[in-house]
């Protein structure tokens, strides 16, 4: 079943590539169909999923037995919510691309390949298998930025590529070394070995080096300071649907990688370096917030906002390493649940905001927020939707961002109070830059050129309405979503509360 979900968009890509002529409507329809079919199947899996800490819907076949490579996919508490996220967002990516007509065939086949890669990266459980998808996700994104991006697209694409490839190489070397010592590429087996303390024994003195090598690849993808430099240009220059993919899903691939590969396999390293890791996450949080304050290109601002928000995930995750023993509230579990919810909440919120930023650029021809003002009166519907998502991002109660952040902070404060207080202060910076965006774009009076801008159409709102509904749903009743991962996280967190 998971394989069908994964490869269905690829079939769509094939169909698009083989379509004779240049029938754009048909191409778009096929791309949408491919994405939707996978989404429906993936969501049906969510209904069949039984909360528990084991794997479900497993498909495991020997692939290259000589080096322990299996075709191994499955869903557990950790990736269920992310598969749902891909399922919800992927049709929206296609819909957001509806206006793209130039070289449509190339565009939509790449987009469909991208979708396959995303499903694959979240469901694969053998490193080799996973790594192929991880890298495959990079290639279409690179081309889509390079071919369809804005003015600075070439540089942005190359930067993006070089950074992620260098990170991937480090990770690959690290894992190959791990394989040589342990004889397995299997995430689940590695986790078992780690829980018996064997990874540390087998790697010996190289344990920290291997940990950092593996972490490096993920570090770039998240990204975290100081390896975030590719992010803002790539997000800003990419065509809007690709920015949505980058922020909505690909940034989560890094966090997911940490939860799948680093936390269970290297718990000792997370514990040993928690101070350093927490500080870097904290720096990223502050960095993102303050740079967002200084920039005026709305997509760049959103990129830094994304840097800031995803860093909260990493902060919660690293705080777990600071656990010293059992506490009253099982803080590691609360923090990690917060991380998972934050991935989901940020995925839907950030994708929605980039979508709206794109709409604004479409109607006004500029992304510079200094050129706006008074749009609250000109585009009231747009202003409402935009502010709604911004307030979720700001962490306003009963919207998605709050539920996730309060969990992260509840857990993290009990584990690393000083760092958490600093992170809370950064929350203020987040509020300042988000309200500044609102102030610049929507308040005051519009100048003559902007006074006649059309409001966002109901159809455009309809495309992202699932995101708006989810923002409220996650905010009001996070339990629905947390239930998927609760048993899994309970087990994982027990590593840290001996």
């Amino acid at each position: 079943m998971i394989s069908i979900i994964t490869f269905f968009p690829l079939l769509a890509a094939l169909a698009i590539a083989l379509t004779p002529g240049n029938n754009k409507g048909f191409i778009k329809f096929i791309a949408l169909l491919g994405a939707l079919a996978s989404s429906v199947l993936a969501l049906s899996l969510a209904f069949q999923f039984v909360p528990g800490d084991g794997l479900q819907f497993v498909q495991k076949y020997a692939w290259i037995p000589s080096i322990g490579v299996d075709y191994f996919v499955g869903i557990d508490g950790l990736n269920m919510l992310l598969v749902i996220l891909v399922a919800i967002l992927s049709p929206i990516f296609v819909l957001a691309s509806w206006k793209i007509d130039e070289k449509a065939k190339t565009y939509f086949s790449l987009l469909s390949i991208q979708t396959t890669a995303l499903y694959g990266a979240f469901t694969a459980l053998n490193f080799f298998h996973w790594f192929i998808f991880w890298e495959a996700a990079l290639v279409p994104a690179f081309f889509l930025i390079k071919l369809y991006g804005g003015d600075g697209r070439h540089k942005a694409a190359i930067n993006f590529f070089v950074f992620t490839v260098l990170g991937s190489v480090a990770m690959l070397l690290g894992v190959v070394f791990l394989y040589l010592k342990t004889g397995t590429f299997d995430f689940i087996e590695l986790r078992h070995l780690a829980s018996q303390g064997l990874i540390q024994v087998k790697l010996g003195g190289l344990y920290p080096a291997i940990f950092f090598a593996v972490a490096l690849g993920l570090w770039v993808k998240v990204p975290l300071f100081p390896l975030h430099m590719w992010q803002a240009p790539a997000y800003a220059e990419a065509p809007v649907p690709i920015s949505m993919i980058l922020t909505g899903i690909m940034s989560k691939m890094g966090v997911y990688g940490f939860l799948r590969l680093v936390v269970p396999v290297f718990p000792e390293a997370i514990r040993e370096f928690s101070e350093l890791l927490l500080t870097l996450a904290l720096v990223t949080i502050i960095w993102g917030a303050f740079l967002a304050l200084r920039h005026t290109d709305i997509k760049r601002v959103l990129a830094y906002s994304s840097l800031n928000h995803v860093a909260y995930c990493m902060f919660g995750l690293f705080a777990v390493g600071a656990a010293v023993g059992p506490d009253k509230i099982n803080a590691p579990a609360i923090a990690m649940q917060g991380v998972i919810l934050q991935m989901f909440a940020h995925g839907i919120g950030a994708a929605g905001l980039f979508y709206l930023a794109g709409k604004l650029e479409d109607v006004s021809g500029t992304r510079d927020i200094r050129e706006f003002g008074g749009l609250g009166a000109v585009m009231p519907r747009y202003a409402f939707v935009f502010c709604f998502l911004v307030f979720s991002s700001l962490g306003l109660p009963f919207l998605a961002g709050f539920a996730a952040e309060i969990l992260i902070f509840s857990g993290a404060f009990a584990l690393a109070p000083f760092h958490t207080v600093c992170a809370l202060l950064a929350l203020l910076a987040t509020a300042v830059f988000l309200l500044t965006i609102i102030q610049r774009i929507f308040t005051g009076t519009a100048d003559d050129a902007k006074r006649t801008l059309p409001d966002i159409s109901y159809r455009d709102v309809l495309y992202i309405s699932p995101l708006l509904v989810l923002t409220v749903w996650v905010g009001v009743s996070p339990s629905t979503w947390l239930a998927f991962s609760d048993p899994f996280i309970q087990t994982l967190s027990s590593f840290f509360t001996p």
Partner: protein
Amino acid sequence: MNLLDFSHSVGWLLWIPICPLIAGVILAFFNPTGKFSAIVAIAALAVSLGFSLKAFAGTWGYETHTLTHNFTWIQIAGVNLEFGVVLNALTGSMVAMVCFIGLLIFIYSASYMSHDARMGRFFCYLSIFMVGMLGLVVSNSLLLLFIFWEIVGLASYLLIGFWFHKPSAAAAAKKAFITTRIGDLGFLIGLLWAFKATGTFLFFDGGSGLLESSQIVALVASENVLWGLNGAGAIALFLFIGAVGKSGQLPLHVWLPDAMEGPTPVSALIHAATMVAAGVFLVARAFPLFLADEAMLHVVSWVGAFTALFAALVAIAQYDIKRILAYSTVSQLGLMMVGLGAGGLALGEGGVSIGMFHLLTHAFFKALLFLGAGSIIHGCGEEQDIRLMGGVFSKMKVSSLAYLAGTIALCAFPFTSGFFSKDQILLSAWTSNSVVFWISAFASLLTAFYMTRQCCYVFLGKYRGEGHVHESPALMTVPLVILAVFALIMGVISEKKYHVLHYLSGTDFHQHETTVVIISVIIAIGGIALGLIVYAKAKMGIDVVDPVKRALGTPFTLLEKRLLADELYEATVFKLWNALAINLTAFESILNTLVDALTAVVVSIGNFFSNTVDRKLIDKVTFDGTCTRIYKSSRINAFIQNGFLQGYLRILTAGAVVIGVLFLVFAR
């Protein structure tokens, strides 16, 4: 249904915030215009008022009872994050006051805002505000209280910036949100600390709640956890920072006067009667935590006393009618804090009633003053500068009389409601800390003085403006009259029948000390007399120097500039903040240069490989990710330039599909 039956669940309390929520959702989605929106909002609030009166009646006479209804919001690894509602005297009195005053202000707004095209939005925001405010009051969970606290902050932001086409309003809204958010972060730290230390968010939970003795005892046992405070005191300190932000105490008071950019009914409801009192309410709700560490009671009373004095001084030198009232609000909120802090020191648990009593009376007379000011501003053609008013009394008799009733209550003139509540604050300060007492007393004297000054400017002499002064419609004046009656007689009734202090504290301690009563009377009458002496006969106008300014000179100018609080922030916090942002940006661009250099190096290595090293050799080593990727990237460049891209991508896609199919085949 027996209202006084305390055995059944109090889940129905949730209806109090839910009713305005329903109205808010209706207004948000259907956005009706004009009267209909007002009717929806008012009807919903009237239902809430019904439930509130039930809560009030239910607690009347049962002041020591506390009933709760709790439920789980999130459960993680067996740990619960819980929500709940609580019914006790504090809840009952607060919800009744908020709903009652809210309803009057809603009715007033229906007339006041009737010319505004976005009236539907206005009532939508007001309803959202009521959801937050009422929810905050009924919450039995620190987390739930925080949630509603934030909703209230959002509503305040939306309403201050309601006329967002004015840049000043937009700026004020942002300033209010961010300044109160500084406090909110303190609150959040307190909340996280409490959760960490006790494992619960609930105030009352059958003996294991945060405010119940077993937890308090455990918290007190952990001594000197932060700056000499014990476990409870540390939590209380952070919660108090939240209260300081919301209630405009020093040094976070700067947002409240600017918040007057919002429509006047908003100022009355949110920035005078209810929301700004939420900070005081928070301290009252969490009072056992404050009581557990005496140092915190001192902190609360000192901060309150300084704020009261500071704001009263600044109020003397303001000319905007709403700004004067705003500073007066800050000052009175300070006195409420004194009431809580000194009350706690003097009376222990019962001290909570001292601050709360003043909160309740203040809500009535301050809402009255703001609504009256709104009516006067309306009558004078939207003029807010008191130097351009004058002689209003003869032209707007009802509004003026109501305003004067509010004024004497605020001045604590004998036998008005303000007199009784302020007397109790002074009394508790008298018995606990004489410096705080004298500061508070002096602030009260100033209060009577600046209110008299303001009334002289507005009501006496000849009209100095340009508009045509006229009385407001009945929809606006009737709420004024109702509030005026309450402002005048509430204290007397309480004194004669069943004392509010008794109701709020559950103990029958209330008393009077002759010395303090005499001082109170002297302060009130003396302040008013002083004001009359200076201003009753003085020449006033926009180009006439204020008589006190003539006498004082520079110090008065400093007061006019609000003691430079904003400038001080500008020169310190903002500077630091901007410097940080600028330096980080500079650093980022340095990093960018490095990155570009790095990329150039990598790309040229790639080109070297693809151009000079045998391609087939590299192809065979496909396992090495880097080489392949870089090789590809450089080749793709060539393809793009040669226009082969279409063909190449077709091959790539086909290849990927073949690999995918092979996966599946091999897999079986």
